[in-house]
């Protein structure tokens, strides 16, 4: 058992960046405000990197999301491993052509002659009263684009291990950081290495119902566990970790075991990742299910500003408990 240290997600990301940049001179960082003279990124996750590795490898950019992603693509095609920060997930919409039409597709469209080994780090999540253009969970959009991996960590160890994997991956990865998980401390092994992409983690084993979640919603599901146990229900909780490609094997094995599934995410429920997972479970396990698969997600609404409205937008731990109880009949 290796030595554990307590750190939060910000520190875990920072540690991963230091390790990755130390290990591979091809790793670059670019984004708005990321050099030390600008504070090392909006959440400080890139702090210290420009001082240690130099302004040629850690580059603050203009507020130009298309130019940021374009520069990362061109460098990646030439063998570099750029880690581009798009400050907030909603700002990826400004660079969607670069991400969707180019980064994700160039390997395929070039018949495998070129590849784009880059990471796009971005921050999102409701709960901070930042309203409809600073808080959306758009991972479903990116999961729909063949050629880009979508990674959604929920705890410090995963922040470190999954980011290391994204940087090493030969293809573009979108790495989604959330305000609800970044500041929560957790135990991280001193020698925490890469955690494989596309593999879910069973957080708690159970036999009656499977709960599938990721990102900040994962923490809300963990808060719901006590209430579920009190009701005498044995819940299996799965942290998906990677949205695309997602771990069908782990999810289907758990769903086959329990026969009841709740998928919970902060993303808007309509056409959200939960729809794909629920449909797959129905296709593969129709006869073995004891109840219809349930989906919990944001309502069909932009993220609101007003606190009571924002609270109502988010799926609460209480809602998770009530949904699980209802599913048990």
């Amino acid at each position, binding site marked *: 058992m290796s030595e554990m240290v307590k750190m939060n997600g910000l520190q875990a990301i920072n540690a991963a960046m230091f390790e990755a940049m130390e290990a591979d001179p091809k790793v670059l960082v670019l984004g708005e405000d990321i050099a030390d003279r600008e504070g090392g990124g909006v959440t400080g996750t890139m702090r210290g990197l420009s001082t240690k590795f130099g302004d040629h490898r850690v580059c603050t950019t203009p507020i130009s999301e298309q*130019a940021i992603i374009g520069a990362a693509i061109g460098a990646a095609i030439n063998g570099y491993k750029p880690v581009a920060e798009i400050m907030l997930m909603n700002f990826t919409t400004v660079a969607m052509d670069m991400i969707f039409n180019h980064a994700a597709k160039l390997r395929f469209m*070039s018949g*495998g002659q070129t590849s784009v080994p880059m990471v796009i780090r971005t921050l999102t999540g409701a709960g901070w009263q930042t309203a409809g253009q600073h808080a959306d969970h758009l991972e479903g959009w990116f999961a729909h684009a063949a050629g880009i991996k979508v990674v959604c960590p929920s705890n410090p160890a995963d922040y470190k291990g999954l980011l290391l994997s994204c940087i090493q991956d030969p*293809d573009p990865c979108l790495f989604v950081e959330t305000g609800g998980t970044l500041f929560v401390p957790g135990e991280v092994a001193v020698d925490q290495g890469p955690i494989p992409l596309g593999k879910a983690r069973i957080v708690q084993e159970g036999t009656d119902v499977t709960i599938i979640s990721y990102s900040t919603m994962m923490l809300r599901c963990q808060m719901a566990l006590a209430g579920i146990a009190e009701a005498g229900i044995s819940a299996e909780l799965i942290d998906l970790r990677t949205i695309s490609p997602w771990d069908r094997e782990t999810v289907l094995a758990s769903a086959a075991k329990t026969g009841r599934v709740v998928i919970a995410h902060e993303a808007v429920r309509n056409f959200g990742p939960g729809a794909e997972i629920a449909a797959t479970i129905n296709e593969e396990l129709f006869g073995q299910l004891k109840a219809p698969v349930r989906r919990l997600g944001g309502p069909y609404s932009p993220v609101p500003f007003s606190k009571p409205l924002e609270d109502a937008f988010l799926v609460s731990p209480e809602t998770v408990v009530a949904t699980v109880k209802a599913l048990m009949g």
Partner: protein
Amino acid sequence: MADLSNSPAPSADTLVDIYRRMLRIERNDDAIRKTVRLGRLTMPYYSARGQEVIPSAISALLEKDDQICTIYRGIQDMVAKDMPLRPLWAEIAGRIDGTCKGKGGPMHLTHPESGVMVTTGVVGSSMPIANGLAWAAKLDGSKRVAIAYFGDGASNIGAFHESLNLASVWKLPVIFVCANNGFAEHTRYENATSVDQISKRAAGYGMPGYTVDGNDPEAMYAAAQTAITRARDGEGPTLLECITYRFMGHVLGDDDFYMTKEEKAAAMADDPLPKFRAKLVEQGHVSEEQLAKLQADIEAEILDAQEFGMASPYPSADELRRDIFAEEIPA
């Protein structure tokens, strides 16, 4: 028009080499159009007939490892960069021996060996990526340059402005080459562009900008030389606006009602290809016999490429699971 007459003049050999590239582009374009019109190939085709001087003069100054990022009308930019024609024809025919195994097609040819790194079907998107190619050249400590080819219409999209600003701030070895053919798809230049010369926009981004006669090989060569030298010397980017005219409509098959018969006839009467040929002969740089052989060689190369491409097999459906990621998607 910019007077860059201080640049060293091209040698006779270089002038003939520029003509060779122009002729290879024109003969290849002619072969593609004929093949499509005969129904032997089905594809969206964006001819750049009339604009051959621009990439030919530039490519005469490029090394093999210099990189280009071009657009859907950019087959001429690849041919000018001496991309082999066999994989080009196999690609536009959608075959497995194509540069991209038939997965990209005529709008997305890629051939890193020739420095053809990305070809985009989205107006303006060559520029942000060319910056990245140039950034890598700089990080490598090399003298490589990156060329971003685009049209006048693309100078009105946000990516142009973001890219020029970043390239200037980062002093990237990139040359922004705008072929101003007077039309953004169907829309006349003056109906959609705020300045009379796109080169004026360079001032807003702290870089030199020149408006050049893009149909004059010597003027084009001089301007490109100035820009490429500046980039290789680490002094940063340049915007070249190359004035030209598109002989065809936006896409092969459009009825180009938005172009007047008179202006089109005038442009075609002033076709830079025969004009340059006559000049080379007149100045004694090349003989009629040499030119006849050059043309015969090019036509033989194209015929061979065409036959090779059309005979290549189609890709199998398994290719849909390959090249999505490095690892194959399971069946």
